[in-house]
């Protein structure tokens, strides 16, 4: 194979690969956006308070202070395994709502800045604080 045609083919191949990668990043951004802010909290307090809760969470659990990890944690199923990838905003909302409900049922709660929260919504607040800082 001529060197030139190899370069051409490689370039085309890269371009072909980059399109789904870009697509994937865009989708991630969309999902991330659908994970924040925590719905219930946003109905009762302002963004500053939610950010404060998020900062409190990441300083208590500094290893979780990463967007990708928080996203994985939020999208993990009830057993905390296999991240699920819900498609639309409504699907994400109802998925999180169920998770929050389950947190309260099983006592998977934390106290952050005094707020008694489901771990899921505290993680949402953490993701929100990172995304908006």
């Amino acid at each position, binding site marked *: 194979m001529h060197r030139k045609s190899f370069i051409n083919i490689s370039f085309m191949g890269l371009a072909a690969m980059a399109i789904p990668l870009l697509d994937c990043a865009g989708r991630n951004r969309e999902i991330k956006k659908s994970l924040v802010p925590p719905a219930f909290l946003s109905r009762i307090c302002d963004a500053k308070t939610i950010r404060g809760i998020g900062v409190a969470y990441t300083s208590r659990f500094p290893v979780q202070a990463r967007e990708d990890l928080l996203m994985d944690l939020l999208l993990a199923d009830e057993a905390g395994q296999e991240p699920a990838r819900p498609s639309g905003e409504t699907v994400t909302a109802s998925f999180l709502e169920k998770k929050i409900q389950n947190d*309260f049922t099983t006592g998977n*709660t934390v106290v952050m800045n005094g707020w008694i929260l489901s771990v899921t919504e505290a993680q949402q607040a953490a993701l929100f604080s990172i995304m908006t800082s």
Partner: protein
Amino acid sequence: MHIDARELRSGSVIEGDICIVGAGAAGLSIALEWINSPHKIILLEGGGFEYDEKVQDLYDGKTTGQHYFPLRSARLHYFGGTTGHWAGYCSTMDEIDFQKRDWVPYSGWPITRKDLDPFYARAQENVELGPYEYNLDYWQKKDPDLIPLPLDKNVVWNKIWQFSPPTRFGPKYRKRIEDAKNIQLYTYANLTDIISNENVSAVKQVTVKNHAGKEHTVHAKYFILACGAIQNARILLASNKQAPQGLGNDQGLVGRFFMEHLEIKSGELWLDRPNSMKLYMMDFGRTKMRSELAISAEKQREFKILNGTVSLSPLATARNTRPIIDVWTGKDPRKDIVDLYQNFRKSDHAKPPAGASPIDKAFQLFTRVEQAPNPSSRITLDTEKDSLGMPRSILNWILTPLEKKSIRKIDELIGQQAGLAGVARVKLLEYLWDENDYTWPSFTGGGWHHMGTTRMSEDSKAGVVDADCRVHGIANLYVAGSSCFVTAAAPNPTLTLIALSIRLSDHLKGKLKRH
């Protein structure tokens, strides 16, 4: 019949079948039970029918330990007693309150809730409450707008409270007492000493004094101390001529186990949408009943916490209310009560218009928790004496970590249940954030509830009075009031202390019948 003891010739001897000392909620409730009986009842009241500075000053004393209201103003010293100032909040103790709880040291009454039930029903009338009904279903049938928050009853339940008008025992019962032929009410008759026989097995007589310089002696078959938990202990300790440690104090228990209710703002409940909160609201003087949030006995056992209930009030208003411990600071109770009402009124005016912001759907959680019985929390005698020559009292109010742990857990359970129901989130106040912090904030206060200083036990080594409220070892001396409480439970004490006093009264009726 009424006699002013200042008008009697000094050295008078008064005689009767039963001598009740103190005409407050406890003493008057007993006296009312004996009207038209064949027995002669002597009712001794230290004050007159009106407030009197000199008499009130007999209550002055020191406080150490946890910051408390001035002793001089925390009680009223005249006919009717502290019902002249009480707010009328009433509820019944729960079954668990009478039980021995291994996580609550010194808990366990020698009587049960069932034993008190018939007397609670009678006590309701004395304080002009509604029907003897503390079941939410009953009240909901009367008013379907009383809608509870949708919380799991196995964790958080609705404890019903009823509100007395509040009944002021002085004006309410004065005429009935004065008109009763078999009751001799002596005002300005301050008990200053109890004299027992030589082997301290019975009371021979009591001494009363007043500021007119008169001193009288009272003889009776039975004596009942009904002067409030601080004064009951003080009188027993100061009556030390025959028993150097004080009467009924062979085990050194008189005055110990002083308990209060911790009444403290603890958190905020934020609803995300308007909810009918009528069941939980209270308009002083108008509301007849309401509910407070309480923790089930099972959960108290599981988490090893004290009993408590949580009231809800609109946050916008509550935030502007000064803590009562900062308001009730003076030595004149008449001024303190005015300041207290002004404080509530002021905060009402500061309330923003409804619907303006999420805060209109937010409520302050105000937790009232029992204090764990603690022998170090106690009343002792001072070397300083009052104007009638009695040693003054010293209150050393001591709290334990269990109270704080319990407040935190109670609010946390409410928070978890509110979250689970999807109706609200709870925010704890900052002093509760750190589980390992057992200090108390400056606004920690009590409810002017004095309890435990002559605790009840069938074992004479573990209590001052027996299950009939008789002082161990002294055949004819009884104590009426919340000083006999073994544990404080969550509700304010007056309804229970009246029930206990009526029970004591029935016990004495039985005794007199037999003789």
